[in-house]
């Protein structure tokens, strides 16, 4: 039996219309053999979490370039807990200051990939996270 493609949901949350980056990331992950579900722009944390749960993704990637990461991402983590779906790993991407990165990781974000992360490094991080997690 072939191994399953890694499933990734990529979301843009809130008032943030910059989606060129996520589209490129989506394309890179596809080319790395992953199933990529893209939600489109302007989603709420509730929508994103419900989508991630229904799609049963390995990774929930949230791209934020608006500066709202410290409100949006903790909310997503809380909602995942509420749904009893913390086994979905959250990866944040975008522009954020170092102290926020530390705080987000503290709260349960598995990885933060900043705007200058090369595509290969994104693919590698995701593969590494999924490989390290228990099979489900």
């Amino acid at each position, binding site marked *: 039996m072939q191994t399953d493609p890694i499933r990734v949901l990529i979301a843009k949350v809130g008032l943030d219309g910059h989606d060129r980056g996520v589209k490129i990331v989506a394309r890179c992950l596809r080319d790395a053999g992953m199933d990529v579900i893209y939600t489109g722009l302007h989603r709420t944390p509730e929508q994103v979490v419900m*989508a991630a749960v229904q799609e049963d993704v390995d990774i929930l990637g949230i791209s934020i370039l608006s500066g709202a990461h410290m409100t949006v991402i903790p909310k997503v983590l809380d909602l995942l807990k509420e749904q*009893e779906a913390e086994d979905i790993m959250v990866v944040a991407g975008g522009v954020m200051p170092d102290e926020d990165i530390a705080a987000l990781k503290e709260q349960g974000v598995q990885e933060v990939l900043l705007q200058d992360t090369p595509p290969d490094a994104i693919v590698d991080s995701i593969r590494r996270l999924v490989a390290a997690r228990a099979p489900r």
Partner: protein
Amino acid sequence: MSAVTRLRVSSLDLVAPVLAGKITAIARLMSRVESGGGEVMGALEEIYRHAGKAHIVGITGVAGSGKSALLAKLAIRLRAAGRRVGIIAVDPTSPFSGGSILGDRIRMNELSGDPAVFIRSMATRGSLGGLARATLDAGDILDAAGYDPVLIETVGVGQDEVEIVQAAHSTVVVSAPGLGDDIQAVKAGVLEIADIHVVSKCDRPDANRTVIDLKNMLTMTVAAAASAPAWPLPVVATSAESGEGVDELVEQIDAHRAFLQRTDGLRERQRRIAQWRLLKAAEELLRDEFKPQQEGGGRGRAQLIDAMTAREIHPHVAARQLIEPARRGTEK
């Protein structure tokens, strides 16, 4: 069931929470089905017994015809009528990388977040015909979990991917305006499988032409099966942009369901679906048995391939020789 136990829970133990409608369990069981393998079979047997209540509606049409956008509007109306809607949206897997981009959720913004609408995106993983291998089992899971109707959106089809008609009780074929002339409308293939025709994007000026072409085509199919009670094939013009025609589409889907129930057509379709799934399951069993990496078979696989390459034996004959020992093995 906590997230931690969800990691290790057996597929059989997921059945009870699935039947109770628990989202995480439904989603996880679907993943297990997509992975395949023997572990999930017992759970699927159980699910299969509980399914069979939902109306299965197939939505198909060429790529870009507006299936996803229409589906989103359709689901909103159904939801507003108090129904729990299951959606399986199939998108193609890249033949090169094995990956996919599943974009149907982009059009379903207004829906996502509502637990009474379950949307699952599924990549074809090499399946042809417009559906993925796991699509119908996933449909059973939604059915057993109490979603009704279950809407299955195929990949964007060409002219010949008509598997959906073997899988759904009602098939909606979406045509977009501006693609081809009235000759396209009389060709064989996708258009023939419709129980309901939709012309999408009816806000566009050339949409009426497509409606007329389709209606003309339908007048040509004179009483193909005069014995069976006739379902008058409707052509519904819709606009996902303005919402026009979506109510009518809901009415037509319900009318078709009522028609099937009234005329014994439902039983017939259920049998047709069962027959097709039986064949697909048998095919899959055979394919697993004869995976390329496995050796064996009566005459060795390599020998058979050698003989075929040299044009000494026909593929059909070689295939018989390949499966012969397996058949003898099961007959003893």
